[in-house]
């Protein structure tokens, strides 16, 4: 697992993808932070509340290659015949993307410290925000890795992930269109936005935490199943 994690990380930084991902993330989060500064407030939540939309565009960048490219270059033959389990293979891939994401999110710590230079921000809220962002990212990355495992074309993986994440972003809007209240309530339970906003506004619910974690776990597991199934094809 460590070997894969290491290779993926170096791959992010030898190809432009890692840099583009970080640059776009830093650019937008920086822009949001500028408006926080301009508003003369220590309330950093605006940065995080706007983040979701950006992630929908850039997380597919991180995950599009992770499985699809292996299949295309036939390097999956090396990984699948190596004495490692499918689980640790997928986990290595997931953790590499997640680590990249952590590097990106870590910039918000800098923002918080800048704010702290002017006045003390509400640290617990800041920590809650960062935690929320990490959990949201983990869930989205797991979904992206899963979609990447379904195809050997990274472009399809990217567009597919983008479409799915866009749907997830707008799921509240869809829920309000459904007239059947029962189905609407089911759909809105799946809302990433509502749960994420809880973190952003400083509410830490165990159920929200578990929601994102279980999404990540389920999709990592599904990715393993996809690899498993391919062997039987």
């Amino acid at each position, binding site marked *: 697992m460590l070997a894969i994690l290491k290779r993926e990380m170096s791959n992010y930084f030898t190809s432009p993808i890692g840099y583009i991902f970080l640059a776009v993330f830093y650019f937008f989060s920086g822009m949001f932070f500028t408006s926080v500064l301009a508003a003369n407030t220590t309330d950093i939540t605006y940065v995080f509340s706007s983040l979701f939309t950006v992630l929908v565009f850039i997380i597919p960048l991180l995950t599009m290659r992770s499985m699809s490219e292996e299949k295309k270059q036939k390097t999956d033959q090396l*990984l699948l015949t190596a004495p490692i389990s499918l689980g640790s293979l997928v986990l290595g891939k997931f953790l590499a993307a997640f680590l990249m994401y952590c590097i990106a999110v870590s910039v918000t710590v800098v923002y918080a410290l800048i704010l702290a230079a002017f006045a003390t921000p509400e640290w617990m809220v800041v920590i809650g925000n960062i935690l929320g962002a990490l959990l949201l990212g983990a869930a989205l990355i797991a979904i992206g890795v899963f979609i990447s495992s379904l195809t050997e074309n990274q472009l399809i993986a990217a567009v597919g992930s983008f479409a799915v994440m866009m749907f997830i972003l707008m799921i509240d809007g869809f829920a309000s269109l459904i007239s059947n209240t029962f189905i609407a309530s089911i759909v809105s339970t799946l809302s990433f936005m509502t749960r994420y906003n809880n973190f952003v506004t400083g509410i830490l619910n165990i159920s929200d935490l578990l929601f994102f974690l279980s999404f990540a776990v389920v999709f990592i597991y599904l990715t393993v199943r996809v690899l498993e199934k391919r062997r039987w094809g």
Partner: protein
Amino acid sequence: MIEVKNLTKSYGNKQAVNDISFTVNQGEILGFLGPNGAGKSTTMNILTGYISSTSGTAKIDGHDILDEPQEAKKHIGYLPEHPPLYLDMTVQEYLEFVYQLKKARQPMKAHIDDICRRVKITNVQKRIIKNLSKGYRQRVGLAQALIGNPEVLILDEPTVGLDPKQIIEIRNLIKTLGERHTIILSSHILPEVQAVCDRVIVINKGKIVADDTAENLSRSLTDDFRYIARIEGPEEEVEKLLNGISGLKEVQPLGQKEPGVYEFSLEADPGSDIRRDLFKRLTERNYPLLGLKTTELTLEDIFLQLTQDSSSDKSKDGGNQ
């Protein structure tokens, strides 16, 4: 060391591998011979755990590849048909990655350097794989299989894409590896398998057609009965003369090759040696025999022969009536 029992792999209705069984003993070099699409790669992919069989079992050193995949895979070094290389890495980085992936125990630097020396890629160790030629890539693929010093090496067409000099080097390398490893290698080139392997399994359309030592197989296969003769003399008369030779099944004129010199393809009945008779008759009529060579068996001929062998035994009785 390797034990394969009733292995079958079907894709829908198509059976890629059909009920294959064989065992490979420790230290043996087994050659898998067959045309493209015969099921060689599929069998190897099953043995290495890349794909699963539809039915049947494969055991490596007593570990079933399905039940104990990690334990079995530890014993295998695999060079697939397309070397699984990360083109954006240098050779050194790639081999270090494989080393960590396989959780090899040997001291890393010495181990990798040693392997690079053996497959002769030391001079490209620091280069990016993308920029390497096919021959070098193939050897990096072989290096990758050797990492961790696995007991079993499974090599899918290891000499494809190499130039003749490299082919000989790799064959010699495989032979030396055979002293310490159990090897299965596939090829569609008969002389290659004969040169390297102790034992040969011929596979066609997913089935084993022959399983024998290389010597026995080549003995039965070089039972030559096809010749190309180059004879000086009027074409029609020579052909008539040739047709008079007993034991000669078919004469086919191949046309004029030099002024007044014609070539004929001769097919003798299996088992009958026509060469002396041919020489005698030609000298009687004073048609100089300028050349006589046996035609090399193509893989198709081998399959024809191997499949005919069983049917010709039966038809012999019928033919004498």
